[in-house]
Structure formats: C-alpha cells, structure tokens
C-alpha cells in the first residue's frame, strides 16, 4: 500500500489528465461528428494530457517511482504520444483531407494549425533523438538539452494549438490542463537545469 502522500499525487495526476477528457465527452459537438472525427479529436486531448506526464517523469518528480522506472515509463508515454499524434492527424485526414493537407503545408487559414504541425515535427524529432541516443554518442547533457528543447517546442506549440481551437474541449478544463502542462514543463527544466551542459566533474 503506497503512502497517502504518494497516492494523492498520483490521483491528482490521473484527475488532471482524465477530467478534461471526460468533460469533452459531454461536448454537444460530438453529436454531429463521425466516429473517426471524434476519435481523432480525443487522440489530441489525450496527447495534451500525456504532455503533462512527460516532464514530471523526465525530472523524476513523481513519487513512488525509481529513477529507472521513471525513465522506462517516460519512454512508453513518449511512444503513446507519437501514437496519439498519428491517430489525431490520420483521423482528421480521413475526415477532411484538404484541411489536413493545408495544415501540413503551412497554408491553412486557421492560425492554430501551424502551431500543431510544428509541435508534431518537434515531437517526432525528440523521439528520433531518444531512439538514436546511444548511436549518436553525444555527451549526455548535450543530448538532454537537445531533447528537452524539442520537447519544449512540442509543449508550447501544442498548448497554443489547443487554446486557439473551438472544439470538443470545454474551455475551463482546457485552459487548466494547458496551465498545468506549462507549469510542469518549466518546473522540470529548472529542476534538471537543462541549460547547464558542463560535464559533471
């Protein structure tokens, strides 16, 4: 049985990610959308939630996990995030191909599209950097700065993308989740001092 403090942190984290998803499930817009469009939207909402978990795992800020467990979960959540991005973009493509083509080519009339696409490419690059980490052979702190910079672009791009959209997410739960994601991101960067790339002596 985990200590009450540990349990409270995990319950709060689950609530922070799950509440916006559940509230979006009551959006009136869903009644007028096809199942694929709905799934694509929820993949986006869940992806935003995963961006809250990732920095907390990276900076080992979640209690009850060893450093190795934190890293392993961080890796799996990263893979899940890529899957959510693929579902989000793929589902929207099936729903309205020209709108997604416009977004990917940065010629969409909607201002949030470019932010989302930039976040997507940054997330892909962050994952590639993680997959190639040993092969690249970079010094750890340099690699971490590069990975964290791409993660920061992913988070900032996604938050702006989400906030500008008028969609299934309810505005208060959306803004709250976005605020928590930014807070977790800043806290993690500070805790890890990612800008400090001096080799540890």
């Amino acid at each position, binding site marked *: 049985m985990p200590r009450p403090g540990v349990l409270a942190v995990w319950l709060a984290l689950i609530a922070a990610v799950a509440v916006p998803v559940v509230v979006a499930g009551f959006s009136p817009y869903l009644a*007028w959308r096809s199942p694929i469009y709905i799934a694509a939207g929820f993949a986006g909402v869940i992806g935003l939630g995963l961006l809250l978990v990732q920095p907390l795992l990276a900076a080992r800020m979640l209690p009850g996990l060893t450093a190795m467990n934190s890293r392993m979960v961080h890796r799996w959540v990263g893979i899940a995030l890529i899957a959510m991005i693929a579902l989000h973009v793929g589902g929207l493509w099936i729903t309205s191909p020209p709108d997604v083509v*416009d977004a990917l080519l940065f010629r969409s*009339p909607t201002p949030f599209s470019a932010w989302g696409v930039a976040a997507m490419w940054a997330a892909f690059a962050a994952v590639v950097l993680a997959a190639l980490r040993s092969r690249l052979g970079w010094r750890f702190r340099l690699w971490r700065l590069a990975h964290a910079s791409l993660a920061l672009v992913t988070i900032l791009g996604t938050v702006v993308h989400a906030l500008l959209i008028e969609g299934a997410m309810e505005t208060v739960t959306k803004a709250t989740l976005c605020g928590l994601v930014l807070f977790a991101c800043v806290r993690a960067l500070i805790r890890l001092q990612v800008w400090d790339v001096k080799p540890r002596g």
Partner: protein
Amino acid sequence: MPGDSLNRRTMLVAGTALVATAGSGLILPARASGLAPTPSMRGGSNNYRPGAPIVDRIGGGGFWMTGTVRQAGDGAPLPGQRIQIWAHTTEGHERDPQSHGATLTDANGEFRLEMPQIVPAFGQPHGHLAYDSGEFETVFLRPIMSSARDKTLAAHFVLQPV
C-alpha cells in the same frame, strides 16, 4: 545636421506626399478602376463539390447564409448569379453531398439560402461559398462566424469578368 537624412522635416514631407498619392489612387491600381474584385480565401475551396443543385433550402434549415454579388469596377449588383454553399452542420460533414446546395442572386444582387445550423468543425465555426459559373473569375470564400451560436452568416462577392 547635414548628414541626418531622416529628420522630422523629411518624414513630414514624405508622409504627406504618400497620403496625397494614396488619395489620388496611384498606389492601389484597383482604386483607379473602382471596386476591387474579392480574392479567394485560403482553404475556401476545401471539400468543394462542383455542380451543387439549386435548392429552396439545404436540409431542414434554421440557419441563414446571406450575401451580395457585385461586379468589380462599377460595383453594379449582379442578378441571377449562382452561388454554391456548403458547411459542416447539424445534418452532415462538409464532404457529404447533403451539406451542399446552391442559390441564385435576386434583382439586387442579393442571395439568401436557408440551411442547417453550422457547427464548429476543424476548430472554427465557418462556412464555404463558391462562385464558379465561368462568366466571371472563380471565387471561393470561407467566412467565420463570430460566435458558434449565430443563426446567420454573410459573405460578399465582387466578381471580375473573365
């Protein structure tokens, strides 16, 4: 100060000259020939289905798409022009055939077509309109509703003869 080419005096002279030139219509070529044609909007032609039928109403109605069609240059209203309209509504996605319909402008160059309520899709509550009949240059518009609760949306065409 001799070397100071961008002082208050030259700025004033240049600024006044610029305003005078703009007022005389020399800067904007469209001004010289009157009303400028409406350019197509980005994404305006997305999910367009050519040849939407002229209908009294799209689906069950409850929402009004309105607008005007005028000629570039003199701004004369253009009667009998076919305007095609489609959107993501309470009755279908943009791509669905039942979401598409067309109407004709009246003697004053105005059009009005009843359609189902537009709902936000792809992040914005918006509609699509097309003029694509050949007599004038094709124009695709994508107006955005200021609120998803609006019951009407307007779009205006100024067409350039081919």
